[in-house]
């Protein structure tokens, strides 16, 4: 039995773990049973006996890693039981299929935020406010210097960036799942009407999104030996892993940019080595995190993924919200 001091969910070997259900959340090493919040690779590992996720996450995962995994799926809001614990997925607004996970046991509610954002994103379901007693939240951008602009403003900046240099090929680096599709969706609503190419890994995810009913602009899959003139004035979406190394030699007369929340800081922009940075993120900014903490009505909050020291101190001083620390 669980004693008073033991939390329903705790940190074990660097991962979130619920002992009562013997289930792990986004584990980084193979386990028996894994709940997966979304299909990014830093939240997934091969070799688990069974995965449980939303339907969309399962489809995206299989597109990325093949059909060889056993995934059980549930709809958003649909409750299922493991060892007497009621578990359900709720939209987290991070990418298509991303979810928060709620646990209810003996009238005690726990909520794992997963990666989340509150900003509008037409390529996935809007974040849903879920009430809880215990909240485990990510805090990737847990400082007040992080405040996002509306994504259509960023898209307009990107459009201007491309059209201001018509003689150049504009390479925009972004994560291939989620960020790329959101950008495509936004850019297609701007004044930029030129060609858009995307790298194979992004192209594949675009198709998956379309199959799941999301409206994504048609892009041309980038081939390595495109004629240079053909690419002038067009936009090419590439995964960040290709920004270093010889891949860029395939192009001539380029300008590069990186789309990430970190790009709101000048020093990080300069250090990144890209010509330009667009501060757009699929994570919540400072105000977003505070809003979720407040609206969830959680009395106890844990943070992970990020530097939580300042955020915790602020919540305690200003909102009298108690932030707990996992013993890792």
């Amino acid at each position, binding site marked *: 039995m669980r004693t008073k001091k033991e939390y329903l969910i705790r940190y074990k070997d660097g991962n979130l773990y619920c002992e009562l259900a013997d289930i792990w959340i986004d584990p980084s090493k193979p386990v028996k049973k894994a709940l997966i919040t979304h299909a990014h690779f830093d939240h997934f590992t091969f070799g688990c006996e069974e995965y449980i996720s939303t339907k969309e996450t399962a489809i995206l995962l299989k597109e990325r890693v093949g059909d060889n995994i056993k995934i059980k799926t549930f709809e958003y809001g649909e409750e299922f039981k493991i060892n007497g614990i009621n578990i359900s997925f709720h939209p987290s607004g991070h990418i298509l299929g991303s979810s928060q996970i709620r646990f209810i046991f003996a009238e005690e509610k726990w909520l794992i935020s997963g990666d989340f954002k509150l900003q509008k994103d037409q390529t996935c379901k809007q974040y849903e406010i879920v009430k809880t007693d215990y909240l485990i939240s990510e805090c990737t951008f847990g400082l*007040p210097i992080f405040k996002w602009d509306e994504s259509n403003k960023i898209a307009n900046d990107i459009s201007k960036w491309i059209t201001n240099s018509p003689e150049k090929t504009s390479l925009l680096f972004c994560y291939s799942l989620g960020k790329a599709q959101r950008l495509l969706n936004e850019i297609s609503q701007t004044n930029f009407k030129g060609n858009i190419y995307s790298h194979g890994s992004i192209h594949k995810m675009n198709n998956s999104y379309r199959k799941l009913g999301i409206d994504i602009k048609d892009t041309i899959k980038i081939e390595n030996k495109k004629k240079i003139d053909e690419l002038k004035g067009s936009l090419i979406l590439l995964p960040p892993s290709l920004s270093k190394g010889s891949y860029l030699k395939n192009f001539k007369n380029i300008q590069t940019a990186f789309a990430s929340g970190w790009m*709101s800081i000048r020093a990080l922009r300069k250090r990144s080595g890209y010509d330009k940075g667009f501060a757009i993120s699929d994570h919540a900014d400072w105000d977003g995190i505070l809003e979720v903490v407040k609206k969830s009505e959680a009395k106890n909050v844990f943070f992970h993924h990020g530097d939580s020291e300042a955020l915790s*101190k602020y919540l305690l001083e200003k909102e009298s919200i108690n932030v707990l620390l996992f013993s890792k």
Partner: protein
Amino acid sequence: MSLKKFSELFGDLDSINSTNNKIEVLKNYFLSNDPIDNSWAIYLLTGKSNKRFISGRYLKNLFSQIYEYPQWLIDTCYLKVGDSAEVISLLLKNKTNSRKKKLSNISLNELLSETIPALSKLNEEEKNLEIKNIWETLPEDNHLVFNKILTGTFRVGVSIGLITKSISKLFNIEQEIISHRLMGDFKPSIDSYEFLINKNINLQELNSKPFPFLLANTIEDKIFKNSINDFQFEWKYDGIRMQLIKRSGNVSLWTRGQELVNESFPELVEKMSHIKDDFVLDGELLVWNFKEQIAFDFSLLQKRINRKSPTRSIQIKYPIIFIAYDLLEINGRDIREIKLENRRIELEKYFSKWQIKTENNISDIFKICDLIFPKDWPDALTYKEKSRENNTEGLIIKKKTSIYSSGRKKGIWWKYKVDPMQLDAVLIYAKGGSGRRAGLYTDYSFALWKDKELIKFASAYSGLTNIEIKELDKWIRKNTIEKFGPVRSLKPEMVFEISFEKIQISKRHKSGIAVRFPRITKWRKDKKINDADSLENAYELIKKYHEKYHEK
């Protein structure tokens, strides 16, 4: 025609890497703005304005007060951002939703010649209110530039050369002329801008201005293929590079940073005015040991630099000398276009007589730079190695046939610096960097052994590659013993080779020594902390390079 336009220019210049594109952006800016704003833009971009109206700390406190933000939270943000002006502009986002944006079109001129200077006439309370008011009425994307100007930290990645090139291209005037016109105390005004872009070149107008300085490049191996006779060799002094100008009877002293420093060195101004000729000399100002005929250490010169109207006793205690390298103009004749070897002849012709000890001589404050005559390149190397003995930094090697152009022109002048002194030291503290290195631990302190204790002896932040910085940053986070604000004390484990230019006794430091220009030259992963050097090794270095050029 506004701060808004200038903020856009700043954003563009900040995010463009290509030089040609930067020039295009600058040309467009100058074309589409009026002369007065252009002159302010040039003033800011060339770094002529670094006046600090309020400090970064003041700015942070003010924000904390107005918006009831905890100071510690602002400080935590600062560690990530590394720039007070930027932190506040990021925090101001969504805070100032005043409907009246009456300042949205404020001109650069109004802001810089009226609004900001007016702040210093206000008392603290009024000043705070006014800054708050400006924040709330300025469009958000102008906050960064405004805060930077306010705190005197406006800097952007364009060189003066790039600015002059843009103006030169735009108005089809030689770049040399533009850069000359920009020398000295360029004051923003319609007149100064119009003078800058005037196609009629009247040399008389440039009379009050120094010439653009010619700078030396670091030596390249290819020079050794040339005949040694093609070059002139001088000692590389560690003083203040200067142009000593006498035109129409008036003497002026201009530093390479384009500051007029007549007031700091009145005895030099006075003596030079005895010379009947008009001239422009390029040379170096030093505090001089007249008995030994070598320079005193730079630290003594520092005692003179910032002191205006020095007393007679200061002048005697720290006797200065101007060492003339080159003659650029004589009696109104600009001779920069003639060969160096011929300029040297002119220099000696006009000035040798003044250093002979006769009545009225100025040998107690003026000297033509001695030349060195190595037989061959290995001999030049021997001279270079000896340079520490006479407190110089190495050699300057000048092509005899070169004309005096401007900037760091390739293939004309070289500096051949003496190899640095080195010690292996243990990393004991790390501090978060600022600016481009914000959010990473990049300021390091190093220690040497004294018996069984590690004593801090130097701090350094340059020399590691970006990859090494990241790797070390990770290690630092994992091996912290204690945190004191932004500083972490570390497990003594990592050994680095530290290079520096000078070493001397210092009572101010716990280690008892001070080094000049310390930098990391190697991450000695092959060494254990017990292999690091001791303070005794450091004292030996001091002894080796005897101290005749230090204060007695």
